[in-house]
């Protein structure tokens, strides 16, 4: 059984009037546990589309997506929800926390989605938040957090269900350089110590040093880029 995430010849087409445009054009890709890869590319090249397909949010028009060896291309909406809940951790752009939940509840609501919250879950959430430096902010609401703290909360939320795959779409978009480095190095650290397969879409070339591999997306086509060529 292959672990991690494997995409084979996936394409995604959109119909714009008469034309059929390929947002994703026969992309094959693989990421293994403990591996942190980046996807860069110009705006509109298909990065978010790629991440959505990898994250079971969007069905590919063609091709296969395998998560831990299991084909998820043919699953129902409910099953995909479950996959997202248990197998995938999303870190999105800033301000994607639920405004009326405090930091601890942001994590517990994820546990709620799959049933009851046990005392062990709560202890685990607190431990995770403490590790991410949010031990003193457990009862704070998102509006009381800095951008970096919000993203760290989002990282903790992505990790709470112990998923196999971490997906991040421009997690540093709303952060200054210093905070961006903090957040990405934190993701990199968690990915390696917890042995997760992680993909990050970014615009910021300076953050690529934290990644093991860099892919470039151009007009829906994905290609491996040499790290050196970017620096």
């Amino acid at each position, binding site marked *: 059984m292959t672990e991690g995430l494997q995409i084979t010849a996936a394409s995604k087409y959109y119909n714009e009037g008469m034309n059929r445009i390929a947002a994703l054009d026969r992309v094959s890709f693989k990421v293994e546990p403990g591996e942190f890869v980046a996807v860069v590319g110009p705006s509109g090249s298909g990065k*978010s589309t790629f*991440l*959505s397909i990898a*994250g079971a*949010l*969007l069905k590919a028009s063609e091709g296969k997506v395998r998560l831990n060896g299991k084909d998820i291309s043919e699953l129902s909406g*409910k099953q995909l*929800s*479950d*996959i*997202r*809940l*248990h197998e*995938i*951790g*999303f870190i*999105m*752009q800033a301000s*994607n926390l*639920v*405004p*009326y*939940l405090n930091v601890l*509840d942001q994590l*517990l*609501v*994820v546990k*709620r*989605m*799959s049933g009851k919250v046990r005392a062990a879950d709560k202890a685990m959430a607190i431990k995770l938040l403490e590790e991410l430096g949010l031990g003193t902010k457990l009862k704070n*609401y998102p509006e009381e957090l800095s951008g970096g703290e919000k993203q760290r909360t989002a990282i903790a*939320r*992505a990790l709470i*269900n112990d998923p196999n795959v971490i997906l991040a*779409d*421009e997690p540093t*978009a709303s952060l200054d350089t210093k905070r961006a480095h903090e957040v990405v190095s934190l993701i990199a650290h968690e990915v390696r110590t917890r042995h997760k397969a992680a993909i990050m879409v970014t615009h910021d070339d300076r953050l690529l040093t934290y990644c093991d591999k860099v892919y470039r997306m151009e007009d829906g086509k994905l290609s491996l880029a040499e790290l050196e060529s970017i620096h």
Partner: protein
Amino acid sequence: MFLALKELRHSKTRFLMIAIIFVLISWLVFILSGLGNGLSTLAASTFKTMKADYVVFEQGSKASMSKSLLSNDLSAKLAKMPNVSAVSPMGTIMASAIKGSSKLNEDKVDIAIIGIDPGSFLEPAIIEGSGLTSDQVTKVIVNETMKDEGFKLGDTFQLDGSTESLTIVGFVKNQTYNHVAAVFTPMEEWRKLAFAAPGSDKGVKDPVNAIMLQGKDIDRSTINKQLSGTDTVTRAAAVQGMPGYKEENGTIMMMLAFLLAISAFIIGVFFYVFTMQKSNQFGIMKAIGAKNGFLGKAVVSQVFVLSLSSIIVGILLTYGTAAIMPKGMPFMLDTKLVFTYSIVLLVISLLSSLVSVRTISKIDPLKALGRVE
């Protein structure tokens, strides 16, 4: 419940405003239902509390006492009909009682004179004084509300436009007819009053307005067939036949129906707009694995908590209002009615929240990835 309560606590003002609207609506619903109940009691409580099951009217009288005239000879025939266990005649006229020897208009009190056989099942329970007797036909029992008009036990009053005078020997409770206090007299005295003008009884022997029947499952068509010129109806139908009763009730019911529809709309629209505003948030939660059911439950339980507490506050306000209402107001709260309307309000608001549930199920989790549409 988790999300629902957390959000209620976090956005208090927002939810407080809609709660206030819902409290006002439920308050109005309960007050209207109390008024409707009070009015219909006033209009027909004598009929409603009567221990009769069926009423025999003259054919063509549209189940209205004032339009019906029968001979009491029918009573004996009716008593022999299948399933009939008891029979008793009744007559009604409207009149005014004059307080003392006053000539002032204010001292005339509208009453309904109801002729019955003393000791029959139609005679209501006495709460003060004694009952009717056949040998003293001017001794009457009256509704206790006449006390508020200054009438006492043992008082003798004259009837406007008549030389007859009646003496109060007893009081009864909750006996109103045609919105005014009921005065029960023996049949014989009622005839004297009702047919004072010569020939007004149309030559009917022992005239009465209607004959009340007791008995379960009486076959109305058999009676109609065997006794020509009669029309037997259930007591409920006779209540509907009271002058103005249907119209009055209909108006109140229409107002209630409108109120309920408005409340459904307000709750529905509020939560719909609210849901639309939060669609991005719902998208994020769906992206991280929340199912439609999880989010739908949050909205429905929010509506449930909000409407239930608003309804409870509305009920408290209604009972508070009832306590300070002037005595003469035809306002009567019925616990069963309040309970029924509470359930109706609750169900209506829950149903209207389903619009939001549907909206949620259509939200695309892709929204969460900051896609530029």
